[in-house]
């Protein structure tokens, strides 16, 4: 019987010209978004791989020079574009893509797309995620707003009831039929996206398949939540208000709440300005030690310690290079200060994001948004992972340079006279780091997953409890 009901709903929907039009528009949009997204991703990947390689070549071929000069010459790190990022651009436009790595300095990850773009970026980018998150719910609204009221007007609900059909079955028939239509649109797109995954690329970790299936499964869950919600509202709301109520909810959920939440988060957990941040670091380093400035108290303590250790009177008599040691110690001190300040900022951002993740319990759109960009590898956590990895890489190679100077630049030897060459540069491996695993991503996103499951359970609970009260007249 349920099958028959579903079939009837489907037939009615498929014959409706409005749906034919909006569904085909949606199809075209999804196709464009996926294809264009894929193309853009490939272009960016190629570009970055090319520059990364040529930058590393420059490092290798920088000729013979003092190791500390090489540390100043520095290297560049480029953010990888994860396999699923063409489906959801996430925060990519608002985050920098490359960072200059040099001695003494934690540079920022620079050059975000939004930076040299005008207000237009704020309207968003046409990606598969935008369509899945905002437009498919809109389609669900168009599919369901008159799903009960029409039958009430035509009196067919009464007829079905008189024939002994339970209202619960009628209700579920409508839910499954609507869901089925949504999946009819979604599944071909998912298959297409799956086929378009970059199978040749070596960066395609074995985890990508699981990542992709989690991605699609969570979207399927999101759609089910929306279908249940819309069918329930159209079952109980007064028929002339159904459409307005649903559209109102959509606007609040997809447009107003996300903005309001982040503005509130910014108010609750204020971000210091860039200037303040840099200033604090500078102050703290200054009160301690600076690799280039030996007049500081800390530096003289270090010096006295070394002199005592080697039982000599002056730094010139030390068997190790004093400048190298001073430089590395300064480096490590700055790193310490930076780590502390940076983790403060990171903590503020995470608190802000946490608020919007919790709002997922009120607004399923926010839940899926966080999940989607986390799985696509375009969220804040992925960015932090990159920034962290690049910084560690910087520290490692700068340390390697300082160590060489400490051990091999003979005391009394002039800075300009000590030089190393290609073998030294080649001993620094090119920048590479592992992307976060799927398990890690899902674990860090438990708020949003719980929020979606919570929504499903609550809506199912309401349906079971109240479906029998749906009016057939």
């Amino acid at each position, binding site marked *: 019987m349920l099958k028959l009901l579903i079939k009837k709903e489907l037939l009615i929907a498929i014959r409706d010209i409005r749906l034919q039009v909006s569904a085909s528009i949606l199809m075209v949009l999804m196709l464009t978004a996926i294809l264009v997204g894929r193309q853009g991703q490939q272009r960016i990947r190629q570009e970055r791989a090319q520059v990364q390689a040529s930058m590393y070549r420059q490092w290798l071929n920088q000729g013979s020079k003092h190791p500390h000069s090489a540390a*100043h010459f520095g290297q560049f790190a480029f953010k990888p574009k994860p396999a699923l990022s063409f489906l959801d651009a996430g925060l990519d436009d*608002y985050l920098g893509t490359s960072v*200059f790595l040099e001695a003494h300095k934690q540079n920022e990850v620079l050059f975000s797309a939004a*930076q040299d773009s005008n*207000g237009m970026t704020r*309207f*968003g980018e046409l990606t598969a995620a935008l369509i899945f998150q905002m437009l498919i719910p809109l389609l669900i609204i168009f599919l369901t707003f008159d799903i009960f009221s029409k039958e009430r007007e035509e009196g067919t609900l009464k007829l079905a009831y008189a024939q002994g059909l339970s209202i619960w079955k009628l209700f579920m028939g409508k839910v499954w039929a609507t869901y089925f239509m949504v999946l009819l649109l979604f599944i071909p797109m998912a298959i297409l996206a799956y086929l378009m995954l970059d199978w040749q690329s070596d960066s395609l970790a074995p985890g990508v398949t699981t990542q992709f299936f989690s991605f699609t499964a969570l979207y399927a869950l999101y759609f089910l939540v929306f279908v249940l919600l819309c069918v329930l509202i159209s079952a109980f709301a007064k028929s002339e208000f159904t459409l307005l109520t649903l559209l109102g909810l959509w*606007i609040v959920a997809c447009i107003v709440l996300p903005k309001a939440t982040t503005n509130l988060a910014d108010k609750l957990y204020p971000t210091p300005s860039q200037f303040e941040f840099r200033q604090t670091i500078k102050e703290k380093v200054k009160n301690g030690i600076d690799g280039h400035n030996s007049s500081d108290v800390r530096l003289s303590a270090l010096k006295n310690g070394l002199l005592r250790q080697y039982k000599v009177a002056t730094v010139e008599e030390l068997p190790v290079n004093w400048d190298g040691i001073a430089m590395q110690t300064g480096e490590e001190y700055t790193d310490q200060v930076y780590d502390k300040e940076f983790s403060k900022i990171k903590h503020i951002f995470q608190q802000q994001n946490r608020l919007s993740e919790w709002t997922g319990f009120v607004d399923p759109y926010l839940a899926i948004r966080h999940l989607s960009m986390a799985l696509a590898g375009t969220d804040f956590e992925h960015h932090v992972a990159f920034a962290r990895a690049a910084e560690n890489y910087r520290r490692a190679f700068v340390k390697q340079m300082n160590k060489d100077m400490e051990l091999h630049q003979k005391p009394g030897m002039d800075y300009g006279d000590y030089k190393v060459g290609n073998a030294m540069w080649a001993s620094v491996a090119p920048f590479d780091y592992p992307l976060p695993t799927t398990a890690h991503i899902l674990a860090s996103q438990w708020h949003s997953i719980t929020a979606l499951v919570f929504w499903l359970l609550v809506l199912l609970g309401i349906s079971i409890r109240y479906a029998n009260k749906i009016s057939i007249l």
Partner: protein
Amino acid sequence: MYPLIVKQFIRSKTVVLAVVLVLIMGVISLLIGKQFLTNQETAIVEVTQHQQEHIERNVRVIDEFGLLLYYLRFALVDAPDPLAALSIGQRDMNPSIQSVTIRNLEGQQYDTDLNNPTNLQSGNLDLGFVIIYLFPLLIIAFTYDLFSQEEETGTWQLVAVQSTSLRRYLWYKLSVRALLLYGVLLTLFAIAIPLLSLPINKALGAFIVLSLLYVAFWFALSFWMVSLQRSSNFNAVALLSLWVVLAILLPAFTNNFLANKYPVPEALSTMVKQRDGYHEKWDMNKEMTMNKFYAHYPQYRKYTLSGDDFDWLWYYAMQQMGDDESQQQSEAMRKKIRQRERASRGLALALPTLHTQLQFNDLARTSLSNHLTFLDQTRAFHERIRLYFYPKIFENVSVKEENWQQFRPEYLLEKPTVNWPTIVLPLLITIVVISIVSVVNLRKAKL
């Protein structure tokens, strides 16, 4: 007749609820704007205070001019206009303060402000957003059943026998709704002016006129839909789809298109060039660097290297090369960005949502072009300071003789230019065209 129409309209609970909601959102958006202004002002006060301390402290301990100028930072401030609170634009991302040393500039000017990217993505809930996104929805909700509702509830016949002109009756109904919404809009501005202490000037006037026109555009569009005389549900779905297309899909699509058409890879190559321009000089013949430096600034030929291993003249010449040798890339990048900016403005002429957003940002001086001007000014400011200090460094004059009090943060005094035709015409033309089509539709309908 008219009072009855008014009464009928505002008796509806939905109408009251919607108006109250938008008023609340509007006030919240103003408070968010105020918060933004306060934060910016605090940062500016801090930088002023800090610069003084920073200079005093360094001058006290460093007596070598070249070394001192290695550390000293000078700030240029592009203080936000109070109007920025209404349309925050790109100001949340681009800093309003550039604090630079006289060393090479290219490495210093691309820092963005510290920002949670999640917040940037969601964007600010400013008054601009309320006007561009929420007002149209209100208009749609109030007008989609202007005609069809009467037909569906069977009151149309009643009206038909009672009124002389049905077209005038529809016009009355529409004007009641328009008056109410314009009332809401102007109330928000009336609250904004004292709350944000907005100066009454041309820019504010243009901002208000633009808002009024944008709202009129949506009324025209809604009225056109009504003039087709379809069912209420059809109108609602069609108007909302139009809203989705105009406010979300087309701007997003334009954005993709432009980003692909004008990619800006030059940013990175500028950075690389700048690094090479400077760093390679350490291992190069000093003569070569100096010759290039003298070629750029012939007036400094009289300063020559002392023959020591290290010389500040040589050091700053190397720094200068970082800028000189990346100049081409830097200019190419700026050109690309401006090209993209122009192209998006061209496309925006046909898209009322995009046009209004960009013009709001221009009037509030929160747009990209405003930031580009700021960067240009920073370049000039940097050059001026650099040229002021170069001779003092090269002659190594006494640090104590300099009047350090004069180096306070400088302010950019930029006023938004109000270009009326560009602001008004695109919307006005669209409104007129849509209205004519609607009127023709209604005439054909023989009401």
